[in-house]
């Protein structure tokens, strides 16, 4: 499943906003074909890390290498063309577009037609190209089981459905590395199971390397190949899921003491 050359390597990345140190000297690398999870308490800097990888933020210091190339200075759209796709923690769909068009936007960098050939639709090959890519999008739609809402306006969908459309859009990019920011937030167990399946398929069958942020420990434990833990912008642990979960610091800062559980939801549950 994993080969040894890293598709992504992060070297000593720090990110400072005014007084806030969102990330301090974080380094890690993701191997090709890996399913890498980042966990950590709220505000630990997980999303900021993804933003550094996808180019929304530029690290204050340190560097980001993707497929061996230094991409630290590249703009987000250039990174997308290199093969980085992602979803967002706070939904970021194109609210007034149909689900289908949202997904077609994912194909943007793969399409060739432009503002000159597009208007000449039938004569310039634009139509042919659109239809080809449309087919791919339909595959993604089928794959993610959202064919019933294909024509719906994205902005009117329920939260969970939007999350799924976001994933579809990111998949449509055909990225080599896909970044998922809490893909299962707002889903019930059944839906989480489906989502987990999708992610595993993306990883195993479509061959995408995955970096995922997720708070559901069950999912993280079960499907990730390696886990990194951030706390206050620092990397406090990394390794195989079991190792990480056993880490005391992680238990305390993130999971909360196991046996406390029933106390905190005290009273009638006890």
């Amino acid at each position: 499943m994993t080969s040894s050359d890293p598709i992504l390597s992060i070297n000593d990345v720090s990110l400072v906003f005014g007084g806030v140190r969102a990330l301090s000297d974080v380094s890690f690398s993701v191997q090709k074909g890996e399913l890498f999870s980042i966990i950590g308490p709220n505000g630990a800097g997980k999303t900021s890390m993804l933003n550094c990888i996808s180019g929304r933020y530029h690290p204050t210091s340190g560097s980001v290498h993707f497929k061996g190339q230094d991409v630290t200075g590249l703009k987000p759209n250039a990174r997308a063309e290199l093969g980085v796709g992602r979803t967002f923690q706070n939904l970021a769909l194109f609210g007034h577009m149909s689900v289908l068009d949202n997904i077609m936007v994912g194909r943007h960098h793969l399409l060739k037609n432009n503002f000159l050939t597009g208007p000449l639709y039938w004569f310039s090959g634009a139509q042919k190209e659109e239809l080809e890519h449309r087919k791919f999008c339909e595959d993604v739609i089928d794959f993610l089981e959202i064919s019933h809402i294909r024509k719906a306006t994205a902005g009117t969908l329920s939260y969970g459905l939007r999350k799924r459309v976001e994933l579809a859009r990111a998949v449509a990019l055909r990225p080599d590395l896909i970044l998922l920011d809490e893909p299962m937030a707002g889903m019930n167990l059944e839906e989480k199971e489906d989502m987990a399946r999708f992610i595993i398929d993306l990883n195993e069958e479509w061959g995408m390397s995955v970096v995922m942020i997720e708070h559901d420990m069950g999912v993280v434990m079960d499907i990730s190949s390696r886990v990194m833990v951030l706390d206050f912008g620092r990397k406090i642990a990394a390794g195989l899921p079991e190792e990480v979960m056993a880490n005391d610091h992680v238990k305390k800062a993130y999971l909360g003491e196991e046996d406390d559980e029933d106390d905190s939801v005290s009273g009638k549950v006890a």
Partner: protein
Amino acid sequence: MNFELLFQLLLNGLIVGTLYGVVAMCFVLIYKSTQVVNFAQGEFLLIGAWVCYAFLVEFQMPFWLGFVFTLLFMMAFGIILQMVILRPMIGEPIISVIMVTIGLSIFFQAATKWIFGATTATYPQVFDTRTISLFGMQIETAYIMSFVISLVIMAAFYWFFKYSKLGLAMRATAFDQQVAQSLGISVKTVFAMSWAISALVSGVAGIVIGMVNGVSSGLSVIGIKVFPAVILGGLDSIIGAIVGGVIIGLLENGAEFVDGQYLHWGNLFSIAPFYVLIIILCIKPYGLFGTKDIERI
């Protein structure tokens, strides 16, 4: 180089600029609480000026009474306008609301011309419009008064938005009407209040300008003139509005100096602020004091 002329021009710019600043503040008030850019701002001034004129001339009221009545009228006007026209627009796309204010501007432009005529009317000399001489430059006392009024209004607005509950509610409403409603804020009341306050302050500005230049439908062009001021200062900044207004005033007069003395192009006075506007925006996309959009994802 003629320093005396330059100095006088700049002084003039400063005074005119504060007036722009006051009108700009009325803009900002509406924008800050409703996200609406009010294209009928100029007409608000005009209505204030005409109504005061009517009270003074048609009804022969003493100035202070006419002034107070005008303020009351403007407040009522703002509230009624909001109730009848703008309330149904709550929750609609901002650009539609902006278009409505454009419709209002067309409507009031015609209505005032019809009711009050297209002629310029002069205020009776009820209020002392003497000029005093300052550094060899004649200045209308009314302008000095407006200078002071603007500073007071500015301070009041600043406090209002920072600390008062209604001020907070207005900002919340501007940010997201749905959230504001979920907090129990009556978007209707907030809007009514902001339109009322804006109309009232515009009325004051209209009277001041009317006292000096006379009232005519042309007064409403101030509404367009302050756009550069508002943007320069930053759309949502009270202080920015004043600073922007003053800068535009100075710029106009500075441009007149360069034009009149050296270039002789003829129109630099009115066009220069727009060139400068574009340049400043390219350097500071949110004006001098505007808050940046939060670009977080």
